């Protein structure tokens, strides 16, 4: 089932749901276990939710699961729920890297010097050089190649 799953929640307590209830975090019962999901109530009392949702922590004053499901509160999104702490993002443009070759990968960046501001981890200047990347076959191929060359040189007639 792609995208959307219907979660059946226990009904009959709390007097049903409002038809125009908003999307938000709901405690629902899925396969016998209580889970917190991002969803919206259907008129018949079930919660329409989109998996997966990440909010394992219970609210401080969490009501029992059934009441939470049938009496949704105003959606409340913790800034950390999905995983980016935007309050700790910078306000000035910053480029940070540990790659001394970034300038070669992205020469376009050196044409826009305004992207970097005072930090010792800024984009390094381009320093043209030849690099050899060692892959899984590089060393064996070098050894075999050298052996062939050596053998052919030894066999050279005098």
């Amino acid at each position: 089932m792609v995208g959307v799953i219907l979660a059946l929640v226990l009904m009959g307590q709390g007097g049903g749901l409002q038809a125009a209830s908003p999307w938000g975090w709901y405690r629902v019962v899925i396969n016998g276990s209580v889970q917190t999901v991002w969803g919206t109530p259907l008129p018949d009392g079930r919660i329409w939710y989109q998996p997966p949702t990440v909010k394992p922590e219970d609210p401080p004053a969490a009501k029992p699961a059934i009441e939470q499901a049938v009496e949704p509160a105003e959606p409340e999104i913790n800034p950390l729920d999905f995983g980016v702490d935007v309050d700790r993002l910078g306000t000035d443009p910053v480029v940070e890297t540990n790659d001394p070759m970034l300038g070669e990968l992205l020469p376009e960046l050196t044409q826009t010097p305004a992207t970097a501001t005072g930090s010792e981890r800024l984009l390094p200047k381009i320093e043209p050089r030849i690099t050899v990347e060692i892959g899984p076959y590089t060393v064996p191929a070098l050894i075999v190649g050298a052996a062939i060359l050596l053998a052919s040189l030894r066999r050279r007639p005098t």
Partner: protein
Amino acid sequence: MGVILAALLLVNQTPDGRGEVALDAPKYQGQSASAPIPAAMHIRNEGGSNGAGLCVIASVLCNGRYQGVPALKDGKASELWRGAKSRPGGYYPGKLRELVEKTVPGETYASFEQRDPTILDTLSRKGLPIGATMSTGAMYNYRPIHHMISLVHYRTEGYACVVDNNDPGHFRWMPAAEFARRWVDGATGWAWIWTRRPGAAMAAGVAAWLLLATAAAIALGTTRRRRAVLWSA
């Protein structure tokens, strides 16, 4: 229920009011994603030790697997993921740097914080998947969120394609201008990449085999010359 689900699936295939559409394939309107991360490599978001999300880690793990970062080939069994699970969630550049340097030592990366989305176009044209902030989306009924996804395609005059770690297995296409609006969350947008070149390992392998072929050709030439000397003798 079946009718409702079928209708929803149908709606899912049609762009919504903001032009977003979720597809199973990394192709849309004649454009193919420049970093088409296979669905099998997508990583599902989870919570860290304090329950806060690991979308940043899920995104960079997914991207790193696609780029062939050796330390990430085991997915959620990698040191990066296990380290993240044992720590509080919710990431920013400095916190990610600390974890990456501890769990994926020696691997090169770059982090960009800015409001100008042209960096997304520049990185995407290199074939790099990008960990990019996204402040809302159809999945979230366009409510504000603080989220990172894998941006697998971005062309300023065309489309953007997103692999959302809250919905792995799908490719969410939208106009690039729409994604550019979502990218800036608060004061800035955040883009993060592994700088390992896509296909670098393969290129090194090809170079090694070329070297081998050259050595063989030289050896063959030497043998022929030797035979020629013998014949003339």
